[in-house]
């Protein structure tokens, strides 16, 4: 009986399988992105608009879960089966540009005279992350930075004024955190402050910020040797770890954060201060944001602010014919033509030079901390450019884990990280 059932089922399936949805080559442009709502929603809106105006060059838009997306992209690029255009995160760009799998962007097709002309239309440094050997390889659509989010309710509860008394330096965080932390016996039930611990990418972002603030860098100028274990690096790591041991306002074991919801501790009120990116404003939603205030990224020296930016940009597949590349550039122009729309729909500021002066953003500047984000973006620089970025990030992440979770000595841990990183760099 079971066998006849199975036979029947297979008979039914065969035509289903053979009649795969007709996915033959349509005359369309393919665009891949990573999963990141509400950004994806806006992209789909734009695609819809474009398709109405250009039925002959309809866009096929697909997006994929974030981390595996870049693996898929790599495989596709290596087998020359990638989409016509795809969104990349800035830190992975060197892996692609050094291997010639991206098409250089034709600046003139975007409406600029040359690269300098284009740079002047953007915030200072906003394009640097996408330039390799003097050529631009991707056009930014999202520019983000890390900022300090504080829970204003907790501040008021502790007798502090969130408008005036918020921390400006890392030491400030320690001191203020001690007034905000809550304990039950020896266990911390509400952290004063914490960093996100869940991903090497995030670790790189804030460690880069810290090291640069102390005047150092993770790699030397030529990008061939690790300098993370310099004095600046050790100081950065000490700063990173001091909230656990010195100030005792932080307890990594208390976190409920996951890769999906890295700022969840903050949203749930389990930590009073947290560092996260600009998109969190939209992710938390207006209800939660009533209790949260955003202030600039903490500094070692507030007079000379140093911040970190990252972003997502659209790159072009070099294997498509020139005529199609031209259409793709038109599409990109279409996508980025409305920076205000980008911000309103996705909560990510757009790094155009005149962004803050655009009409209609006054309310956002007041209630959604646009000023804070744009200011930090203007003083920001991109994370270390290296084809070995992921290995470097992993090494730094492990070093951080050793110090924060196990209490290892900072210099020893960074020495180990540099050994790992130098090994990785040798593989080039």
């Amino acid at each position: 009986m079971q066998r006849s059932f199975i036979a029947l089922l297979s008979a039914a399936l065969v035509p289903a399988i053979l009649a795969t949805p007709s996915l033959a080559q349509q005359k369309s442009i393919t665009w891949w992105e990573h999963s990141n709502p509400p950004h994806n929603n806006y992209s789909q809106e734009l695609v819809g608009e474009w398709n109405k105006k250009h039925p002959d060059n309809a866009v096929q838009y697909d997006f994929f879960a974030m981390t595996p997306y870049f693996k898929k992209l790599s495989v596709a690029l290596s087998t020359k089966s990638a989409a016509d255009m795809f969104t990349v995160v800035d830190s992975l760009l060197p892996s692609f540009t050094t291997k010639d799998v991206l098409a250089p962007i034709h600046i003139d097709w975007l409406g600029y005279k040359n690269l300098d002309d284009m740079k002047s239309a953007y915030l200072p440094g906003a394009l640097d992350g996408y330039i390799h050997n003097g050529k631009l390889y991707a056009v930014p659509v999202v520019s983000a930075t890390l900022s300090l989010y504080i829970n204003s309710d907790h501040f008021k509860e502790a007798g502090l004024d969130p408008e005036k008394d918020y921390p400006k330096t890392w030491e400030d965080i320690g001191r203020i955190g001690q007034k905000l932390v809550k304990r039950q016996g020896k266990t911390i039930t509400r952290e004063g402050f914490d960093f996100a611990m869940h991903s090497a990418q995030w670790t790189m972002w804030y460690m880069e910020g810290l090291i640069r603030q102390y005047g150092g860098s993770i790699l030397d100028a030529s990008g061939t040797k690790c300098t993370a274990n310099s004095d600046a690096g050790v100081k950065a790591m000490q700063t990173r770890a001091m909230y656990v041991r010195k100030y005792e306002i932080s307890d990594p074991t208390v976190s409920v954060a996951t890769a999906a919801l890295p700022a969840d501790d903050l949203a749930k009120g389990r930590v009073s201060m947290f560092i996260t990116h600009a998109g969190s404003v939209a992710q938390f939603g207006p209800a939660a944001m009533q209790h949260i205030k955003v202030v600039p990224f903490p500094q070692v020296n507030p007079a000379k602010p140093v911040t970190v930016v990252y972003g997502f940009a659209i790159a072009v597949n070099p294997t498509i014919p020139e005529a199609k590349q031209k259409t793709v550039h038109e599409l990109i122009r279409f996508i980025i033509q409305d920076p205000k729309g980008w911000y309103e729909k996705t909560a990510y500021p757009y790094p155009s030079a005149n962004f803050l002066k655009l009409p209609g953003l006054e309310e956002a500047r007041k209630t959604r901390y646009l000023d804070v984000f744009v200011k930090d973006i203007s003083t920001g620089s991109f994370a270390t450019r290296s084809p070995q970025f992921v290995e470097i990030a992993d090494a730094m992440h492990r070093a951080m884990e050793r110090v924060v979770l196990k209490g290892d000595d900072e210099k020893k841990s960074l020495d180990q990280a540099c050994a790992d990183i130098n090994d990785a760099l040798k593989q080039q």
Partner: protein
Amino acid sequence: MSKPAALRWGGRLITVLTIAGIGLVLLPYFWMVSSSLKTGSEVFELPIRWLPEHLQWANYPNALSRWSFGTYFLNSTVVAVAVMICNLLFCSLAGYGFAKFRFRFREAWFILVLCTLMLPLEIVLVPTYLVVRQLGLVDTYAGLIAPLAVDAFGIFLMRQYIRDLPDSLIEAARLDGCSEFGIFWRIILPNCKPALGALAILSFRDTWDQFLWPLIVVSKNALKTFPLGLAQMEGIDSAAYHEIMAVAVVGMLPAALIFLFFQRSFVRGIALSGVKE
């Protein structure tokens, strides 16, 4: 012959403990379903909340409508059923061949089969993708199915099971003039129900699970499978876990159904030598 009282009570205790053990084993399921019906903030409440205050049935349509889960579900089902059928057919054929026949290089072929079991698909992803691309199967159902259509584990399982079937059954059928395939279809298969049942469930489950392979071989939204959809849910606004659990519960249903369909064969246990319990 009646057992002494102590033994009877001891036996009852063991039975009770066994039943209690079920609670432990099924606790994750219970938690999954319970969480799928909670609100976002109830999910991680302290002290622990076993049952939601009100059943949030709306979680299900909310979560499932975000993306084309209907499509993903359908695709996963088609692919998993196809792979299941292929495995049932090809693995039992091969298992029979390896178990009851002698042919040249049989042991060598079997070692080869075993070899394919040693490396997970994820590791040979790129070479497999290249083969599939060469055959023009990228972005097709066939491309999703083909690399999974035969799992060496299934051959191993069927061979092991069929080996224990008495040769006399086969000899008798041959003497009666039954064709070789006839013997397979009419004699061997009906006697393999427990192994076939287990194989059906496992190949369905493992195919349903596949994440990296569909990610690489498929780009069109129309062909995405369920795990790809589930992974896309990560990265939504703060209140997502209850919705993720809702989607996970729904995602569990097909495998559960297949399990319930095939479980009779080995839960009630069909002993080979026909000995009743």
